[in-house]
């Protein structure tokens, strides 16, 4: 180990004590870049891939050789639990070196924070919200503490990229450089990454000068998909056939999870609760000693820690969880990972896969696709799409593909927050200075100065800002309330609010309880609310059509075009599906037959009253197309089952409708496709934005006017007579 010589004595001791036989490739590569160049760095490798050490060792070496005057390295983690976890690991590594590391987040006492300000540790571990808090509330102290900052490590980078929280982190880091006059190197760690270019772009704030060390994706993983069908409860047999099927599923789930360390990922909190309680019952009945525990955002801290510890102990435990355990909290060696219903994205699938396979084994995931016939909306004309989606995602993940990070976002809500944060720390600010400092930060590069002026004007009109005669801008009475709120530093709103049911069966959840008569989009369809209840928070709906509130920003999975194309290949073009079990293969065959029968392979199929359109494009493009087609003269209505099919009610022939749609598409600005129902403030500060900016942000994030262009070639491929 030649580069051992570059490492200080206590690190060599640690390595020796941990009985490492050598550095892994990812670590050697990372060392090379960190010691040898000045570049920012992105490290992507599986959970046990050693990427944390890859980043930390050179940092620690640098801090030891050349002690900083203040905080020398900042470690940023998305969760307090993760930070606490990392802190322990770090203490072990630091040993007797004399280098100090401290944590700083919502659960840390104020006295400890004050101490950290007076006598800054060499390494500070912090959440983005707490960093925002320091910058907003203690700016001079921030300047003191961080003036010698050399490194910033961003853990779970993929969780930040393309989100409001990630943008806020970029704002904080860029503001920190400005305030403290430091130019630290940034190192991003992640198990999964969208693609090299966008990751490097993100870590370097668009200025270039970044390298990537990558060695983990879905390749080499074992993914199996098991299919179950729960028939509708039949009164004639007292619902027995359904109960038998459900039981069989849970017994199989027990079989897969019993006796080993595993996480069962579920797509919603309510679903996780139900799975956990049913699995518990079955497990007890079978006399198993392996505990079944639960972990998600609404579960108490104690229960969550208990679940994490149970996994860490390695003695076998099953934890049913939502995405909360997706991120890298150390949970020890997992044998396998279970996923109920296809995950929201390939990226999520790979991230979850990466939690398993530590014991030297390959990462392993078992996906359960459960078709519940009592939920009539779970299949479309006989096709159970979730099964096809699971297969498509498994294939893509195996090939090393994940969704690219979202780009072109317009984070106006964050701009609002950063404006208030800046004004809290300074006096005598006029617009030019404000625009230079705030709008200049990387996440806002897509926003024009005139737009910003419009936002400021709006904030004045609602009393959040005040402009004095000499054109200095101060925080207004309303803004004052916002800025002094305990949670000012957070940009995300809290999760699942109300359940949405049809015929008593849950379709999904939405953040805010909708009004009776309002429309919601869930599971790809549009629904109209017929009744609501307060406790439990629930809305009863029936299917409808037209524009609806889509709970964007939470809970409505956007399917990428690549996944859709692979699904079409599997369903329509007969591409092989090798992850399915026997039952799954059987169901797939039936789906293929059904798909052929309803003409899903064609772009256009005639149906009574109009035609069906199967564009096979991603969710955003699909919805954009739906809006455009709805606006074609002569189209009476469009009922969509997103993102698979839309039924167009019209007397016109499909060719002319699609021709008109194309010409509309060419001359329509995306913003004009945004309707009042879309204007649902979802980010924490969205309610304070002018409607016009919310619309623009929605269009930028949720609509895809380029992608819904139906090309002539693709229709010919499908053998249709469609002229495009």
């Amino acid at each position, binding site marked *: 180990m030649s580069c051992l010589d570059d490492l200080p004595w206590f690190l060599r001791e640690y390595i020796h004590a941990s009985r490492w036989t050598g550095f892994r490739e990812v670590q050697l590569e990372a060392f090379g870049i960190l010691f040898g160049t000045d570049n920012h760095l992105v490290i992507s490798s599986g959970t046990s891939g050693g990427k944390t050490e890859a980043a930390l060792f050179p940092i620690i070496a640098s801090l030891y050789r050349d002690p900083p005057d203040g905080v020398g390295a900042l470690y940023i983690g998305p969760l307090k639990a993760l930070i606490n976890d990392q802190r322990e690991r770090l203490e072990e590594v630091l040993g007797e070196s004399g280098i100090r590391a401290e944590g700083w987040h919502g659960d840390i006492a104020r006295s400890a924070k004050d101490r950290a300000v007076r006598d800054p540790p060499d390494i500070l571990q912090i959440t983005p919200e707490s960093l925002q808090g320091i910058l907003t509330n203690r700016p001079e102290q921030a300047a003191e503490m961080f003036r010698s900052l050399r490194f910033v490590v961003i853990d779970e980078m993929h969780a930040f990229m393309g989100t409001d929280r990630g943008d806020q982190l970029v704002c904080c880091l860029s503001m920190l450089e400005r305030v403290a006059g430091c130019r630290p190197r940034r190192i991003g760690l992640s198990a999964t990454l969208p693609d090299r270019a966008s990751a490097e772009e993100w870590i370097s704030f668009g200025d270039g000068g970044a390298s990537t060390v990558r060695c983990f994706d879905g390749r080499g993983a074992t993914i199996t998909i098991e299919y179950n069908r729960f028939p509708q409860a039949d009164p004639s047999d007292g619902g027995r056939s359904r109960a038998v099927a459900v039981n069989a599923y849970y017994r199989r789930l027990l079989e897969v999870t019993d006796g080993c360390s595993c996480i069962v990922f579920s797509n919603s909190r309510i679903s996780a609760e139900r799975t956990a309680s049913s699995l518990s019952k079955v497990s007890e009945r079978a006399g198993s000693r392996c505990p079944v525990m639960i972990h998600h955002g609404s579960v108490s801290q104690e229960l969550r820690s208990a679940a994490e510890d149970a996994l860490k102990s390695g003695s076998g435990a099953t934890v049913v969880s939502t995405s909360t355990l997706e991120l890298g909290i150390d949970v020890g060696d997992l044998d396998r990972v279970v996923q109920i219903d296809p995950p929201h994205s390939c990226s999520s699938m790979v991230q979850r896969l990466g939690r398993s396979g530590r014991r030297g084994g390959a990462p392993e995931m078992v996906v359960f696709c459960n078709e519940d016939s009592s939920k009539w909306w779970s299949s479309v004309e006989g096709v159970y799409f979730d099964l096809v989606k699971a297969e498509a995602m498994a294939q893509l993940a195996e090939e090393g593909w994940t969704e690219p990070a979202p780009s072109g976002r317009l984070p106006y809500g964050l701009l609002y927050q950063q404006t208030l944060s800046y004004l809290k720390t300074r006096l*005598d600010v*006029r617009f030019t200075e404000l625009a230079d400092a705030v709008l200049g930060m990387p996440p806002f590069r897509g926003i024009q100065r005139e737009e910003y002026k419009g936002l400021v004007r709006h904030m004045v*009109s609602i009393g959040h800002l005040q402009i004095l*005669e000499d*054109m200095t801008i101060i925080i207004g009475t309303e803004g004052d309330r916002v800025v002094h709120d305990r949670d000012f530093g957070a940009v995300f709103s809290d999760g699942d609010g109300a359940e949405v049911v049809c015929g008593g069966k849950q379709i999904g959840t939405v953040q805010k309880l909708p009004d009776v008569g309002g429309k919601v989009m869930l599971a790809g369809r549009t629904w109209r609310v017929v009744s609501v209840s307060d406790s439990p928070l629930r809305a009863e709906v029936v299917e409808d059509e037209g524009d609806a509130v889509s709970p964007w920003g939470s809970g409505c999975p956007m399917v990428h075009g690549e996944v859709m194309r692979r699904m079409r290949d599997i369903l329509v073009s007969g591409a092989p599906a090798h992850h399915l079990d026997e039952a799954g293969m059987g169901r797939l065959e039936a789906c293929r037959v059904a798909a052929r029968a309803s003409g899903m392979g064609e772009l256009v199929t005639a149906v009574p009253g109009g035609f069906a359109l199967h564009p096979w494009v991603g969710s955003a493009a699909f919805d954009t197309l739906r809006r455009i087609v709805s606006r074609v003269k002569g189209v009476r209505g469009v009922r969509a089952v997103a993102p698979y099919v839309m039924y167009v009610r019209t007397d016109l022939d499909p060719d002319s409708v699609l021709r008109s749609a194309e010409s509309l598409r060419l001359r329509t600005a995306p913003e004009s496709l945004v309707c009042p129902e879309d204007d649902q403030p979802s980010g924490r500060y969205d309610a304070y934005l002018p409607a016009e900016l919310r619309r623009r942000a929605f269009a930028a994030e949720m609509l895809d006017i380029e992608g819904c262009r139906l090309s002539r070639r693709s229709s010919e491929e499908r053998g249709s007579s469609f002229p495009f």
Partner: protein
Amino acid sequence: MQEIPRRTLVTLMNALSSGVVPRRGLEYIAVGRRKETETFVSDLEDTAAGGGAFRFVSGRYGNGKSFMTQMIRNYAMEQGFVVMDADLSVNRRLTGSKKEGLNTYRELVRNMAVKARPEGGAMESVLQTWIESSEGDPAVMRDRLTSLSHLTYSQDFSAALIRYRDDVSSGDEDMPSLRWLKGEYESRSEVGGALGVHSLIGDSNWYDFIKLWAEFSRVAGYKGLIVFLDEAVVLYKLPSKASRSNNYERLLTIFNDIMQGKSSYMSMYVCGTPEFIEDPRRGLFSYEALRSRLTAGRYESGYDNYLGPVINLRPLTPEEVYVLLRRIRDLHSQRYGYEPTVTDAMLEEYLRAVLENAMSPEMLTPREITRDLISLLDTLHQNPGADFGRMVGGRTVDPDIDPDDIIEDLEV
């Protein structure tokens, strides 16, 4: 047009052309504001008699608050008063956790001025004059200082003054008494025993020392002390409600102290914008105790009450601006020694043009117009053949505020 001392004229014109309030020569360009001036003059008489006034001078940005107070300051010095002034800022307030109040005291004392030393920095001169008039005898000095004895900290203050005599005659660079009087000590341990004082001038008690200076100014042979605080709008802009509150509280304390006669031979003037005073949610009016005192003597059936605690400086009327411009023209010609070529009619044309062409004519301040006119006169003087009509037509005045900073169409 009367002859003005050369030095005053040059200083005056230089200041006006850069848009700052001149320290001298203001009387030559003072226009209007007669009633307000009478109020101040009457205040000075009261102060000399042992009383005092606390007034807020309220006026919109650029409308002549600083000008007015500067004029009064100069007049007061002429009349034999000691004056002190300070501009409030982020670091100079009435009170604050980082000694922002003490910073204000230090600035006030640093800017102490008298007729013989109108630029400021007059403290040592005042002290020395006093020592000489006491013939350097500590007993005489102590005796004369007994009139301060009813005030808090008078013992320490007197001790420091007497000690100053020794410090001066010792010839030492470092004079502890002076440093103490200037408020430069941060902790008692720094002061040491030799000075013989038990207290320290700090954030919470600096006003008490201002009162001592006022009383002392009498002893030293002056008529009293006039204190000016400008840019009070800074307090309004403070982002923290608690900070604003603390500062307003302090203003109220001082206001009460002076108006209830607990201080003598001292007046204080605080300049701020109408918003700073009248905004019910954020300004002085948000503080109930202040609001009731400040509205007490306001508009009496339509007439401005010039005796109330708030003096509202209304903007100059166009006629008054015109008078100002004529004066500027005359001063300019005197400065450069030429016969004025710009007629009254041309000035009218100029004024009309700049008002018409301004984006918001009501926002144009006398400062901006003055600066612009001087610039125009400079050009005309250097280019005798220039066409006045062409220079004036379509002319716009450079605003004080960067146009990029202006946000239009604001609503609430």
